[in-house]
């Protein structure tokens, strides 16, 4: 049980504030975020396609954060769920002619199902071993997708039709699609917040803190961890499905292990185990990739440097540092 004694990097120790004040600050922050995101495309300053991508990644990062931040499990293979969601949604929409809502549903269901299988294998180990196991299993999934005929290997599934959501909203209209993606994101965000603050979430936290003790209290901890894993996988699948429709393609990039690393980076930059951290991290990283695209492979180098800097100096991430600063300020005042 050595893994259990070192609380996972979540560092949730100091990060998660409690009390009514913090709750109010959180609601305020949520409203500001929602308002900002709703208004941004109207300004015409930002390429809406970029925003949609960023939101998809934000869902993905939040899903990942659910696992590391609240269960203390670092999955290094979350790309497999993103990719699965994408491939299934793309395939069902393109080949089987599913409308977008069904395609997305199929994508997230498939990701959840794979999550259940992978979870069953992976949660037998903790800490580093869990990370490596998920990484290796995701690489296996990668090879399967590389060879499965329906994914078209390196070529990917291209020209995915966007269709009409519920037969009403024409998703090939960028504006319409943007608000749909925004709605999906906000719902997913609220759902995750609810999961964290549910009785189920409390037990997850207890398991993260001291698993043998939770067992001795009569909790079948494996089931809770598995459930959390499946939830996280499903939400990652949601991100992948929506992203496939946004980008109109599904490809190996989304299943490759570098993508798994990228989502870790997003959460690390934003703040592991904080509720807004992953969103901010996702936006920052995607923006960086977007605006530094001209630098070619240097983007990778810059990402690596950020990774190192975060681990060495800013383990709390942007949001974590802000919270810590706020707490320090309020402590000063007292």
């Amino acid at each position, binding site marked *: *049980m*050595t893994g259990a004694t*070192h*609380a*996972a*990097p979540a560092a949730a120790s100091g990060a998660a504030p409690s009390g009514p004040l913090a709750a109010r600050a959180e609601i305020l922050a949520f409203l500001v975020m929602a308002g900002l995101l709703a208004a941004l495309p109207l300004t015409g300053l930002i390429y809406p396609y970029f925003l949609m991508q960023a939101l998809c990644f934000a869902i993905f990062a939040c899903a990942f954060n659910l696992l590391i931040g609240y269960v203390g499990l*670092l999955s*290094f293979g979350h790309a497999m769920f993103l990719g699965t969601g994408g491939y299934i949604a793309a395939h069902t929409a393109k080949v089987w002619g599913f409308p977008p809502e069904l395609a997305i549903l199929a994508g997230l269901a498939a990701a959840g199902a794979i999550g259940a299988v992978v979870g069953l*294998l*992976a949660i*037998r*180990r903790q*800490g*580093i*071993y869990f*990370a*490596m*196991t998920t*990484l*290796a*299993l995701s*690489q*296996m999934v990668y*090879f*399967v997708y*590389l*060879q499965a005929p329906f994914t078209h290997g390196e070529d990917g599934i291209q020209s995915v039709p966007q269709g009409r959501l519920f037969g009403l909203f024409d998703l090939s209209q960028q504006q319409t699609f943007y608000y749909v993606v925004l709605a999906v994101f906000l719902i997913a965000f609220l759902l995750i917040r609810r999961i964290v603050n549910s009785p189920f979430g409390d037990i997850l936290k207890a398991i993260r803190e001291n698993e043998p003790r939770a067992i001795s209290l009569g909790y079948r901890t494996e089931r809770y961890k598995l459930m959390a894993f499946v939830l996280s996988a499903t939400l990652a699948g949601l991100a992948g499905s929506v992203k496939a429709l946004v980008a109109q393609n599904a490809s190996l990039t989304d299943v490759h*292990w570098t993508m798994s*690393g990228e989502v*870790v*980076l997003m959460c*690390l930059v934003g703040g592991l185990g904080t509720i807004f951290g992953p969103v901010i991290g996702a936006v920052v990283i995607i923006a960086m990739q977007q605006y530094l695209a001209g630098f*070619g*492979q*240097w*983007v*990778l*180098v810059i*990402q*690596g*440097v*950020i*990774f*190192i800097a*975060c*681990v*060495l100096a800013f*383990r709390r991430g942007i949001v974590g540092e802000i919270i810590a600063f706020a707490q320090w300020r309020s402590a000063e005042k007292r």
Partner: protein
Amino acid sequence: MQALYGQLVVGLINGSFYALLSLGLAVIFGMLNIINFAHGAFYMMGAFAAYFLLNWAGLGYWWALVLAPLMVGAVGVLVERTMLQWLTGLDHLYGLLLTFGLALVIQGVFQNEFGSSGLPYAIPAELRGAQNLGFMFLPNYRAWVIVFSLVVCLATWFVIERTKLGAYLRAATERPELVRAFGIDVPRMITLTYGFGVALAALAGVLAAPINQVRPLMGADFIIVVFAVVVIGGMGSIMGSIVTGFALGLIEGLTKYFYPEASSTVVFVIMAIVLLVKPNGLFGRTA
């Protein structure tokens, strides 16, 4: 039948690389409790070091075999001193994340400089040619790779499992502060161990250069398979990583013969099965 033997020999060659790399990972993991994600990058740097030595200094393969691990090992020492050192006492996952970042940086820099396609590195003159084994042509160079890596693996095993130095290493893995309080300069030991593990990776890189060409991404995907090897073996013992490495190479070879489509996934399938039956891996210690 011929093709079967052929595939087995090719598998054994791959196994040599698995064994060398997972051995280095195990040594580093043992001492620093870090999964060295940058291992693939150091492997690649080993190959590049050989390339530079040849093209810039005119030093050939045999020199590279000695100098490249030293050079890359020195880089490892530097990395440990300047970065990893600051992570002692933190959750082990931070080590994984830091070395992941490091891998991105190293690979990115090389990719910018050298593109992502391969640079040729010639087989040394002494090892050119092939033996006709009847069932296949075995290039001399590949035979050399198998034999040489086996020797390196066994020597490493001997030092760690059978000498006092090894006992210090293993003890310091668990409680570095205490071992230090017994009078042993643990930080230096850690630094040198990391350097040694990295040097093993670089050595594998030199061995691979004539086979795989010298490519910035040569270690990137390969290392994930090695991780699977490590999970299967269980990190419990040095011998475990050696045996698992070679064995999985052979199994891959078998798969290539009987069902080539599965050859890239077979290692992972085995990993899944092992996890079901023995969650701690074949040679792993129980918690």
